[in-house]
């Protein structure tokens, strides 16, 4: 280790660029993970924020965004299970928003009952906002999406599906990669989503007497009613995330970019350390000629990699924090949380020695006979 510390401290021209490159890779890794996990969290946010233990959907629905109209009468099927404590409707669908100041955009309208114990409103629509949304045509947007929605002042905000809407307040932390959410009362949503006919809903939400009963209820309902998709909260979150990342273009792109980014980061780290090791191959060749075990040289190279990884993780963390903040301010869902620092740092610290191990192949370049002219 003493050799590794000495070389890192004194050979700044050799290891400085390596540390900078690996720090950049650490930053890339952390930002990629942050983006990926934020996207995972955001696509399933309405499910996670609701107080429902069960989500009942059309049999073809595997993800929240795919919601299709189902008969409202299914509610009795669910409410009839003795373990179910409460049930309600939940409307969701795409609509065109014609902004007050001109231009239009696609939005996702979510309509929920605004009662005090509303399952759909849950932590999404705070009690103070529920009262305001009870007015016909009253809508809310997420605080981070107000500019995109054209909700610049309270009151008339434009038209959704040709119906006037009034902006009355906002939710927090409900960003979206695609069309932003517009929240409203379920009665308002019926007018804004004409494709959902009377007697239909998009989802039926249910709460059990105890959350642990949800799996049993779901199994019973699936057995009894074919063509009706029944998900527990966690199943629907997982299904929505998997569907988004594997079936949507945006998800696939992000998944691809994350994988490519991580591979590039690993490759750059590996090549950088390889170059740094190869640069000292003549010195190692002298030791090799004198019979010093290669194992000792390899351990020294690994220690160098570990130190480079440690320093890079320390330098890369604040850099990734600032990049995440910038992305967040630009409206890109990117959350930088303490555990992410730990994961990113661990990945970098782990990646560096792995790269160091790969870079050990540069020791094969050692050919003491080459030292003889």
């Amino acid at each position, binding site marked *: 280790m003493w*050799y590794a510390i000495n070389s890192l401290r004194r050979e700044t021209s050799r290891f400085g660029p390596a540390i900078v490159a690996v720090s950049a890779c650490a930053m890339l890794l952390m930002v990629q993970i942050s983006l990926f996990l934020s996207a995972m969290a955001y696509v399933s946010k309405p499910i996670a924020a609701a107080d429902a233990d069960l989500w009942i959907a059309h049999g073809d629905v595997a993800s929240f965004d795919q919601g299709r109209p189902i008969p409202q009468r299914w509610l009795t099927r669910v409410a009839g299970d003795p373990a179910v404590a409460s049930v309600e409707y939940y409307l969701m669908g795409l609509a065109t928003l014609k902004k007050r100041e001109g231009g239009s955009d696609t939005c996702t309208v979510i309509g929920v009952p605004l009662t005090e114990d509303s399952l759909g409103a849950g932590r999404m629509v705070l009690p103070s906002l529920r009262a305001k949304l009870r007015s016909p045509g009253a809508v809310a947007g997420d605080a981070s999406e107000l500019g995109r929605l054209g909700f610049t002042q309270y009151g008339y905000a434009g038209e959704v599906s040709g119906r006037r809407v009034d902006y009355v307040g906002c939710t927090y932390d409900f960003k979206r990669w695609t069309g932003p959410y517009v929240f409203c009362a379920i009665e308002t949503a019926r007018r804004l989503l004409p494709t959902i006919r009377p007697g239909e809903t998009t989802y039926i939400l249910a709460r059990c007497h105890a959350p642990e009963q949800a799996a049993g209820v779901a199994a019973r309902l699936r057995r009894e009613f074919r063509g009706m998709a029944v998900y527990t909260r966690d199943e629907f979150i997982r299904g929505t995330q998997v569907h988004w990342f594997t079936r949507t273009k945006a998800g696939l792109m992000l998944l691809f970019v994350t994988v490519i980014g991580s591979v590039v980061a690993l490759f750059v780290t590996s090549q950088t350390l390889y170059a740094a090791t190869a640069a000292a191959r*003549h010195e190692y060749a002298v030791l090799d000629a*004198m019979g010093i075990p290669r194992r000792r040289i390899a351990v020294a190279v690994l220690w160098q990699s570990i130190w480079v990884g440690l320093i890079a993780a320390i330098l890369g963390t604040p850099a990734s924090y600032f990049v995440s903040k910038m992305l967040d301010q630009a409206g890109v869902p990117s959350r930088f949380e303490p555990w992410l620092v730990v994961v990113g740092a661990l990945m970098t610290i782990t990646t560096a020695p792995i790269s160091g191990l790969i870079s050990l192949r540069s020791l094969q370049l050692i050919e003491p*006979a080459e030292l003889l002219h």
Partner: protein
Amino acid sequence: MQEAKLVAEHLTRAFGEGESRTVAVRDVSLAICAGRFSVIVGPSGSGKSTLLALLSGLLRPDEGRVMPLGVDLWRLSDAERRRFRLEHYGFVFQGYHLFPSLNARQQLEIVLRWGQDLPPRQARDEAIEMLELLGLGKKGRLLPGELSGGEKQRVAIGRALVKRPSFFFADEPTSSLDWERGRQVIELLRDAAHERGAAVFLVSHDTRILPYADCIFRMEDGVVSEEEIR
């Protein structure tokens, strides 16, 4: 005459294949004795560095055998040959090849700690002792970049001598030094032979070294054309 410590028999080594095949060393046999300073001289391309590589076990001969201390070097496994080099061989190369991040003392310590598993304190003491013997007692804390060419070469010699090798191979160790500093290096190597009993084998094209040599081998076109024992 003393007993030979290293015997080479009918060494031949060629590079390339077909029409581009060049025979660098052709049917060379020689013996190197303990406590003697042997020098091999010859013009560029005469095959002297290849011969050094063959004798030191860094290059496998196409034909012939190398037997230091009665051991046929190329009958050993890679690990055994490495072990043999660790126990018996020291090297000095033309370009110093010192670690830029280690000071003079650490250049020697690394050999003792990594090669002989000496504890740090013992390695440090032995390194300091060697540097003092080489007249570098006050330079132990200096990095290679802070040392002159002659000092660097003396550190390189110290690095090779500190593990007390039976054989000491040096390739053009004075080529980048002025004669005064080169002479000091040659005297050090000769002392290593005479006072430590090592078999020192040096390759050079500088004929000013010859008066210091105990054995002289002259090489031309891959063949030892003349051998002079003093």
